[in-house]
């Protein structure tokens, strides 16, 4: 047996009372560190005496020995408050509360002064809060100063007037003219009434106490319940003091009941189940984040311990594999590694009385079959834990529900402790699962003959390279067995084929007994694969909560050759775009300008310019050759002036053309040209008619 278990690293796990989901642990180190964090005084003192009291009380319950660096400042503030005549009643009470923890040395004169104030206000009190603070103050005085006379002569009257504010459902109103009742007020009233009972001389009549006990029971009838057996007092209405959270009103009620229980020194016979449920509620909050909530939680839990101690079964199933956990010293000799540890403690984490824990039943998780076992756990005094040394024989890797029961050695304890009956715990027994005969095969479609066969090492590195067409099949098979050789069915056995373009196809690998097998007939899958040929990466995932060696393993790839998609085939779905690429900067774009037209070299242009000018010079040379002259230029003054003007005009027109080319625009040019034209017409006419008359004269001569 021990050898078989060699590879069975029985592990860890799990717990929780009655309900499988909520896991609650008793008050622990985390509460302590949270308390130190939340109640950290600013500049050596807290904001108010109320806050000081909450911090001190929390520290006290949690057993935190804080250096009393706040003692001096707090005591000074207590003394100041008590001396002052203008302080509110609430401040007096807070001061006395702080004093009850810090035990400051107080001036007894001042204390006597407060006593009379409490009494005065008690006589004139008509609202619940007034009663609460006056009586609370007197009770605190009585505890702290034995010489002060705080006894109430008319206790009965006060009791009845507080009682008058109570409602039939066990809740209370804050004052007679406020019709809304609340659980929070009920807690306050109970505390006040408890105070009256303890201060009363002569004692309060038994009948009144009996009605009070009935009120408490009625109050418990109105308690709210969650499905998992958690009980709490809810607060429906939002009063003048803002919304009271269920935590604060439940805490208030618990405080009240505890005070009544202490004052009457009678058993209240509260239903154990509801007390347990309340404890569950307070623990279910976890570690609260605000100082006030932490105070309410811790304070209420400390009072719950006073009413009836709630036993909290914290169950550990620890891997007691001596190598993995060398710090855990408890393991039995014949079975090296396995032990179930059950720690029983009270809600505040203090040790339980002598008792024994028995494992009663084991259920296979998810089924109703139970194997009845009555096995007592061995108590280890050093660690304070109950140890299940041997697991029953038929337990293998898997999930089970263990049912434990607490049995008190001393029957008296049944009255003071609430244990909550049987506790059912979900236990995962984990182990290394053996994987054998893993292989991947390509089969020929028709005959089923083996085309390619590859052995796989699981878990391990595999890089198979397969190829197949749509007429072939792929078969993956492997065996899974527990260390005891039984079949094991993991929760997760997926075969994943991922195409190059990122489309995943998931298949469940089914089993018959130990053998796991999946056959992919590609002919039937072409549509599902969107007719996408190419490389498909194969990935196998086998995992289970009870499997120590869960793995995700790439196996290699298969190159699929599928037929072309017909026209109507569905398109593959779009794949998610990588967010990083989607947002990156874009590639720069520079505009490509139109290339300038090709032009000849300047030299070429100049050469042709020269060639163009040649005819002009040829023309001039020709004129010289022909003997051109200006002999017939008019000699007389008037015609010669007109001729000169005419030719200057022509030159001006030509110059205007040159200017037009150089700088002028068309409009200026046309304007100038118009003027010049008229001028030219005039002088041209004169010149030409003169020339014509001269030549006609010549002809006629």
């Amino acid at each position: 047996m021990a050898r078989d278990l060699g590879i069975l690293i029985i592990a860890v796990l799990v717990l929780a009372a009655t309900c499988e989901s909520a896991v609650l642990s008793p008050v622990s180190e985390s509460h302590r560190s949270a308390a130190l964090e939340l109640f950290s005084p600013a500049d050596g003192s807290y904001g108010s005496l109320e806050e000081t009291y909450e911090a001190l009380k929390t520290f006290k319950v949690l057993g935190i020995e804080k250096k009393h660096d706040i003692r001096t400042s707090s005591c000074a503030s207590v003394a100041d408050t008590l001396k002052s005549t203008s302080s509110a009643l609430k401040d007096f009470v807070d001061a006395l509360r702080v004093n009850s923890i810090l035990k400051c040395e107080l001036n007894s004169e001042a204390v006597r002064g407060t006593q009379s104030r409490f009494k005065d206000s008690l006589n004139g009190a008509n609202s619940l809060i007034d009663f609460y603070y006056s009586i609370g103050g007197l009770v605190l005085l009585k505890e702290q100063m034995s010489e002060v006379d705080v006894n109430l002569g008319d206790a009965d009257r006060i009791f009845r007037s507080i009682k008058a504010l109570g409602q039939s459902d066990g809740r209370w109103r804050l004052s007679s003219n406020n019709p809304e009742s609340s659980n929070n007020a009920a807690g306050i009233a109970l505390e006040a009434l408890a105070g009256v009972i303890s201060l009363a001389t002569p004692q309060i009549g038994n009948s009144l106490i009996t009605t009070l006990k009935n009120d408490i029971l009625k109050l418990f009838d109105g308690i709210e319940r969650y499905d998992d057996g958690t009980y709490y007092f809810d607060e429906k209405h939002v009063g003048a003091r803002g919304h009271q959270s269920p935590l604060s009103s439940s805490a208030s009620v618990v405080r009240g009941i505890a005070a009544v229980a202490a004052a009457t020194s009678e058993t209240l016979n509260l239903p154990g189940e509801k007390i347990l449920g309340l404890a569950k509620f307070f623990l279910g909050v976890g570690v609260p984040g605000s100082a006030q909530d932490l105070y309410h939680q811790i304070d209420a839990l400390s009072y719950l311990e006073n009413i009836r101690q709630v036993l909290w079964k914290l169950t550990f199933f620890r891997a007691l594999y001596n190598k993995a956990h060398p710090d855990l010293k408890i393991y039995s000799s014949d079975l090296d590694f396995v032990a179930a540890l059950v720690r029983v403690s009270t809600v505040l984490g203090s040790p339980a009385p002598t008792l024994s824990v028995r494992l009663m039943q084991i259920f296979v998780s998810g089924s109703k079959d139970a194997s009845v076992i009555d096995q007592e756990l061995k108590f280890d005094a050093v660690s304070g834990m109950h140890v299940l040394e041997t697991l029953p024989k038929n337990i293998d890797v898997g999930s089970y529900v263990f049912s434990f029961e607490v049995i008190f050695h001393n029957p008296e304890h049944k009255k003071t402790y609430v244990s909550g009956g049987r506790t059912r715990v979900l236990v995962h027994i984990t182990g290394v699962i053996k994987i054998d005969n893993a292989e991947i095969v390509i089969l020929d479609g028709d005959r089923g003959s083996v085309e390619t066969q590859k052995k796989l090492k699981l878990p391990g590195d595999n890089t198979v390279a397969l190829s197949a067409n749509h007429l072939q099949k792929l078969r993956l098979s492997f065996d899974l067995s527990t260390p005891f050789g039984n079949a094991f069915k993991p929760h997760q056995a997926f075969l994943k084929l991922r195409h190059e373009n990122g489309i995943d196809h998931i298949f469940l690998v089914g089993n018959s007994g130990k053998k796991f097998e999946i056959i992919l007939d590609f002919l039937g899958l072409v549509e599902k694969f969107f007719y996408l040929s190419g490389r498909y990466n194969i990935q196998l995932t086998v995992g289970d909560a009870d499997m120590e060696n869960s793995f995700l393993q790439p196996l290699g790839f298969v190159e699929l050759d599928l037929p072309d998609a017909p026209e109507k085939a569905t398109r593959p779905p779009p794949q998610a775009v990588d967010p990083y690429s989607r947002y990156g900067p874009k590639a720069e774009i520079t505009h490509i300008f139109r290339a300038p037209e090709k032009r000849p070299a300047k030299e070429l242009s100049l050469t042709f310019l020269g060639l163009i000018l040649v005819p002009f010079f040829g023309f001039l040379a020709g004129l010289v050759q022909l003997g051109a002259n200006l002999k017939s230029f008019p000699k007389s003054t008037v015609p010669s002036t007109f001729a000169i003007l005419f030719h200057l005009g022509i030159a001006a027109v030509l110059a205007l053309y040159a200017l037009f080319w150089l700088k002028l625009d068309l409009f200026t040019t046309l304007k100038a040209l118009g003027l010049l034209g008229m001028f030219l017409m005039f002088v041209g006419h004169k010149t030409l008619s003169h020339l014509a008359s001269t030549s006609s004269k010549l002809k006629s001569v």
Partner: protein
Amino acid sequence: MIKISLCLFLVSVPFFAIICSAFSEDRPTDRRVLVLLDDFAIKSSHSIFFKSLETRGFDLDFKLADDPKLALQRYGQYLYDAIVLFAPTIDRFGGSVDAASLLEFVDSGHDLILAADTSASDLIREIAVECGVDFDEDPTAMVIDHTNHAVSETEGHHTLIANDDFVNSEVILGSRKIEAPVLFKGIGHSINPSSSLVTKVLSASPAAYSANPKSKLSSPPTLIGSAISLVSVVQARNNARILISGSLTVFSDRFFRSGVQKAGSTTKHEKCGNEQFFVELSKWVFHERGHLKAVNVRHNKVGETDEPSMYRIKDDLEYSVEVYEWSGSSWEPYVAGDMQVQFYMMSPYVLKTLSSNEKGLYYTSFKIPDVYGVFQFKVEYQRLGYTALSLSKQIPVRPFRHNEYERFIPAALPYYGASFSMMSGFFVFTLVYLYTK
């Protein structure tokens, strides 16, 4: 009657003034946050998260999600800048609020943190779907991971996942690296692949899957591997930001304080990454990071300072813009090397990366293309986690005027020469023709 309305007006003026000062373009950080809860116990059990918001100056208004007095707006003005919706099981909101009005709230540029959980109601799922996120339809499904779960004494189904597959973005998750894995226990979701607004911030490992841990699987799960998103964010086009988480527990004090050890790993972290992760994420959602604004968009011809009303093709121009990032209390220069400007008409003709002076000023210069028409200077700056900058400024570009072309082309010298020799010849000819004897 008139007196009464006047009184009302006088009373409401300062009220509106408060509302207006709360959220503005100049101070984009949210101020007033409505926290909707299933149960007031969440206020206490998730107090570290709320406290971190409060210490950062947010004004949290805690309400039960089915509070009959619930209202998001009054007199057409929104009463809140953001909503934290920590009510995964709510079937119907109280008061006048419903899914449509909540989405309208987001559509008007406000922020939302939404946490679902295993028992997520249809209402929550519907809101998530509208935000581009699909939670697993199976109501009993949870994300399970047999290889990346957290070592835990109390959780045996491997639904408590230790995950460190974060989005690689300093603006979303802060500049300090998150060393420890984040604990997650809840439901997974997938994001629409075609949506460019949703980003996975925390994705599951390749071995994860979403299924009911307590029953055997009969068909392959719909959500599997790293396609599962555990926490996603949405950056809407109107700068509204949404955080969607498949778990409410991840915000709880229990997780914030918890240590973490990944299965199969020997390193045990004293504290898991949840607090850092979600606090940083909330800073992003509430616009304490990654909110950009652009001011002083200028452009001018090189050598000039005034902005012209029109450019000519082939002009050289300078373009500059200043970009600032909101740091939660002030506008700080935004420094990046990938700001780009486009000179755009139907498609970008020029796309150029802007140079930066490291003090928020981005500038560049380029030559206008030889195409005329109505162009735009466009800055489309979309980066993961940053609000989108979309600036555009229209400017017409004209072609050369008739007298702006080149006048004296050397290649045309023979033509010029021919004209002028012709003109000179004509002049000489007139003289010779008229006066030769």
